[in-house]
């Protein structure tokens, strides 16, 4: 594996098998690419092609149907994220791999500043210091201060997205996955996010991103990888054959 590569995805494929309905829904198919340090790789392709599935497969929210997802850790060893032990994945998610998803997940009564501070607290940072860092990032995102002590539950889509981004960026992971990070943002805020991403790149963060705007791919991506739409074949899934594999 290229010494600059933080991530090497080899022949990643994902199929969803719906047991009761007896069907298999294809998603990403035979995807391979590298993500290098201090660079941003963009995944492009039509909607439904499986771009988010690739990100989720890397993060282990989805199990891979096929392929390897080789990640080089901070310490220098190479782990296949697709088959790594669950505790290892939990540790890597806490310390090295971040994911800004399309939707904001948060605990019901947590204040925005605490939602953003979470990744730092999980790494052992003192709560006041973590909150300070969270607050300065929220300020940079132009999220009004009056919202910082409130739960994001009632925020607009754009406000939620800014909280989501702040949480993803605050801990400066080694590998950052971004799923449509600017989808709900106005042009000004999008510019802010672009500068933040550029800063992170300069600080050495490796990024893999899905952008819905082609201009952002042009501005930010050092490389782009096309995910083709899956071949539209809904196959009848043979339950007997694969029940053992799953149990």
């Amino acid at each position: 594996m290229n010494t600059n590569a933080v991530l090497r995805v080899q022949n990643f494929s994902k199929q969803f098998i719906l047991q009761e309905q007896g069907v298999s829904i294809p998603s990403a198919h035979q995807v391979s690419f590298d993500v290098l340090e201090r660079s941003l790789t963009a995944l492009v392709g039509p909607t439904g092609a499986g771009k988010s599935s690739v990100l989720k497969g890397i993060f282990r929210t989805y199990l891979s149907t096929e392929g390897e997802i080789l990640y080089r850790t901070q310490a220098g060893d190479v782990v296949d994220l697709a088959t790594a032990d669950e505790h290892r994945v939990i540790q890597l998610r806490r310390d090295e791999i971040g994911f800004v998803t399309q939707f904001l997940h948060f605990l019901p009564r947590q204040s925005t500043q605490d939602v953003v501070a979470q990744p730092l607290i999980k790494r052992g940072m003192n709560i006041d210091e973590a909150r300070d860092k969270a607050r300065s990032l929220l300020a940079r995102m132009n999220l009004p201060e009056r919202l910082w002590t409130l739960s994001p539950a009632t925020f607009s889509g754009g406000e939620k997205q800014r909280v989501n981004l702040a949480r993803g960026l605050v801990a400066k992971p080694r590998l950052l996955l971004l799923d449509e990070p600017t989808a709900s943002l106005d042009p000004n805020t999008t510019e802010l996010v672009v500068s933040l991403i550029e800063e992170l790149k300069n600080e050495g963060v490796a990024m893999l991103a899905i952008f819905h705007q082609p201009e952002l791919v042009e501005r930010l991506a050092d490389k782009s990888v096309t995910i083709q739409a899956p071949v539209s074949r809904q196959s009848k899934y043979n339950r007997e054959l694969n029940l053992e594999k799953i149990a």
Partner: protein
Amino acid sequence: MDMDMDKVLEVRGLSKVYGSGCDRCFEETGPEFDSNICPHCGSVVAAHDLNFDLYKGEILGIMGESGSGKSTAVKTLYFDQAPTSGSATFFDQGRAVSLFDLNAAQQRQLANQRFGMVYQNPNLGLNFDISAGGNIAERLLMSKVYHFADIRARATNLLKRTEVMTERMDELPGNFSGGMQQRVQIAKALATSPPLLFLDEVTTGLDLSVQAAILDLILEIQQRSKTSMIVVTHDLGVIRLLSDRTLVMKYGRVIESGLTDQILEDPQHAYTQRLVASAL
């Protein structure tokens, strides 16, 4: 990086059968048979061949519907029931303790000092004949904290942490609402700062706002004290909020296990897929 350094509990081959049992019990019960009752001898195979690890500071969720056997595992680990077979090793203060090899006195001492248990029914976890503060004091006394002022101070502190009004600490638990009784149970369970906490359906039946408060409290405890926990529940929302990893049980067997977000977003087994699709 040595992950084993942080292991708190290792359970292997844990089984519990109620009844005489026979040599066909295990082969003819389970999710494929839609039953945990042996068709030959009538014994109930409440749990069979459970294997899992728990690491320091982690919350493991055990999820299942009624009759899945999810509470059985916890009952054997807390010594409320003896297992039929299997082993459980507890790693604590540099030693490895084989739980099912301890005698009754040793088990009681370990449960008092190093475990905490919160039941769905406060009647099981609290003594309704003594005050809320008294319940906590009782636990401290059992683990050899004897100084009265210390006990009083600790009890007050714990009740504050669990948001129970300390003015009421000398009242009997029967006077409290369900949510408050649960909070006293949690305070009592935490009294000895146990490294391992078992929570069995602790928010089931409580009002939504009370549920939220208790879940917040559990997370705060985990963050502050790095307590390892096993949370048993049938509620997907609780699983999603609390647990890093989840075991899904059906008719006494673990049918699927993995990272919680993966179980909820990419369930593999037919039953898990149905459960996730059924969530409101």
